[in-house]
């Protein structure tokens, strides 16, 4: 029999410490939807998504109600659209984004990911068309998210794609200038992208995946932070132990919800993504966990070590609690979506360079960072190249989600609202990287032996 403390602990985690399931994401393969006729292809995309995910939201809500655990988002990821649309002769892929958007709306989900292309080694015709369509797709749809993989450890870095994405991010910001460049919040540039990530904006349904799967992303930075308050001044061995235990509990809950959703929807369970995903709410911050470990402000010296410990302990604790772990699994450090990160960036202690260092030891990368609107496409590309190099060399996923805030300067705030939060515009280095980026070509894959 459960004891009273255990029951009350769970309730307080949910009520006071913002414990929730961040997302149930249904991955849907669209490989069977290809057709040379654009209208027919779009019709198939719409039909496949809307029939597969018809009961997703309702089922998520029922589980939420019965188990008393908030499930914040219900989402859909699909096969990278560049692969699906390529058979059509059309050069504008906007209609495919519109079909995705319409299907997402019909299903009642808040985001659909997969307006994507995988170009780590080179572009196909379809990849180019898709990437050129990204700015309009993100400006003219509301739910569609886009991602482009520009590098892998096996293939190296496609620097032509990196340069192109610098320009695409600029254009996306321009087309959504009336909304603070919001389009860029729905666009991720990856190195070593994973195929089963349930988190937006980078989710897509990889080509090695089954017809349809359920992936669940858990959260809970508030719970970890609260648990650490009981280990004040304790050595790091104990800190790691507390985080592991907490991550185990959070993940067990995620596993339960994933299995229940999979059973009710009659769709196979894919993975639980063990990520600590913050929100702008007070008490739901990854930065505050690092500060709880003894750093005055997140971003000061010691932050990278603290984050490395956190990231590793979350994985160690979570991995035993779930049948299949996947996705990005680690700590997220999106600046605009984390109350503590926003405060640290505002204080000037947390800089872009420190964030880059932090991405070496945690999942994902430079995420939801607002930069001045007059930043050049080459500088954005150079930032992407740096992140990709970190990912490729360290065999990990890295990503860039920058928002060049139109008309804003360093120190201004950009408001995105909701889970996307608000971000202070952070400074970038003024010296030019244009000549470097304009070289183009590919940076060869790194050596995988002689590792010292």
């Amino acid at each position, binding site marked *: 029999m*459960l004891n009273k403390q255990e029951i009350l602990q*769970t309730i307080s985690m949910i009520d006071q410490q913002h414990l929730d399931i961040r997302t149930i994401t249904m991955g849907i393969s669209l490989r069977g939807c290809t057709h040379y006729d654009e209208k027919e292809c779009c019709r198939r995309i719409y039909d496949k998504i809307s029939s597969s995910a018809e009961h997703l939201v309702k089922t998520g809500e029922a589980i939420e109600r019965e*188990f008393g655990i908030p499930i914040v988002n219900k989402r859909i990821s699909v096969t990278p659209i560049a692969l699906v649309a390529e058979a059509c002769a059309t050069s504008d892929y906007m209609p495919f984004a519109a079909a995705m958007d319409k299907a997402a709306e019909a299903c009642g989900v808040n985001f659909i990911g997969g307006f994507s292309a995988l170009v780590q080694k080179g572009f196909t015709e379809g990849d180019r068309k898709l990437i050129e369509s990204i700015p309009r797709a993100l400006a003219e749809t509301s739910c569609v998210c886009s991602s482009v993989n520009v590098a892998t450890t096996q293939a190296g870095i496609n620097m032509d794609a990196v340069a192109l994405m610098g320009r695409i991010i600029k254009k996306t910001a321009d087309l959504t200038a009336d909304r603070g460049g919001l389009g860029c919040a729905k666009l991720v540039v990856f190195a070593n992208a994973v195929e089963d990530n349930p988190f937006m904006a980078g989710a897509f349904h990889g080509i090695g995946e089954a017809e349809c799967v359920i992936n669940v992303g858990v959260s809970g930075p508030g719970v970890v932070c609260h648990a650490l308050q009981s280990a004040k001044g304790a050595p790091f061995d104990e800190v790691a132990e507390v985080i592991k235990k907490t991550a185990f509990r959070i993940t067990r809950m995620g596993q339960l919800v994933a299995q229940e959703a999979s059973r009710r929807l009659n769709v196979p369970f894919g993975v639980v993504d063990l990520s600590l995903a913050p929100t702008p709410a007070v008490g739901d911050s990854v930065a505050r966990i690092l500060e709880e470990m003894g750093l005055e402000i997140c971003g000061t010296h010691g932050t990278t070590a603290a984050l490395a410990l956190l990231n590793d302990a979350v994985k160690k604790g979570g991995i035993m609690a779930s049948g299949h772990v996947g996705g990005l699994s680690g700590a997220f450090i999106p600046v605009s979506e984390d109350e503590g990160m926003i405060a640290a960036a505002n204080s000037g202690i947390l800089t872009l360079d420190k964030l880059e260092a932090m991405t070496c030891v945690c999942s994902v990368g430079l995420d939801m960072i607002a930069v001045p609107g007059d930043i050049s496409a080459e500088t954005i590309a150079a930032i992407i190249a740096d992140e990709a190099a970190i990912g490729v060399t360290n065999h990990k996923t890295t990503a860039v989600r920058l928002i060049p805030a139109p008309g804003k300067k360093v120190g201004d705030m950009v408001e995105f609202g909701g889970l996307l939060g608000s971000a202070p515009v952070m400074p970038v280095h003024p010296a030019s990287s244009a000549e470097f980026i304009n070289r183009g070509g590919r940076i060869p894959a790194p050596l995988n032996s002689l590792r010292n």
Partner: protein
Amino acid sequence: MHAIVTVIGKDRVGIIAAVGAMLAQNGVNILDISQTVMEDYFTMIMLVDLEKCQISVAQLASLLEDEGTKLALSIRIQREEIFNAMHRI
């Protein structure tokens, strides 16, 4: 199916009676009950059996929530599995 009902809030007359009556009306059997009052703060935890419950857990949750609002208490019902998942290997 078992579930846990928790009632948390300021103590007052008739909490157990009100919650118990509502559960009985809907065919919910109370298997175990424990309560404490610390400095006017009331916490009650019930283990209930929903086998003969005539309405869905979601509907029951809404009824209990409404009753809670009336009594200025937080009343919730959650399936037992969530607690077992978190606290038992």
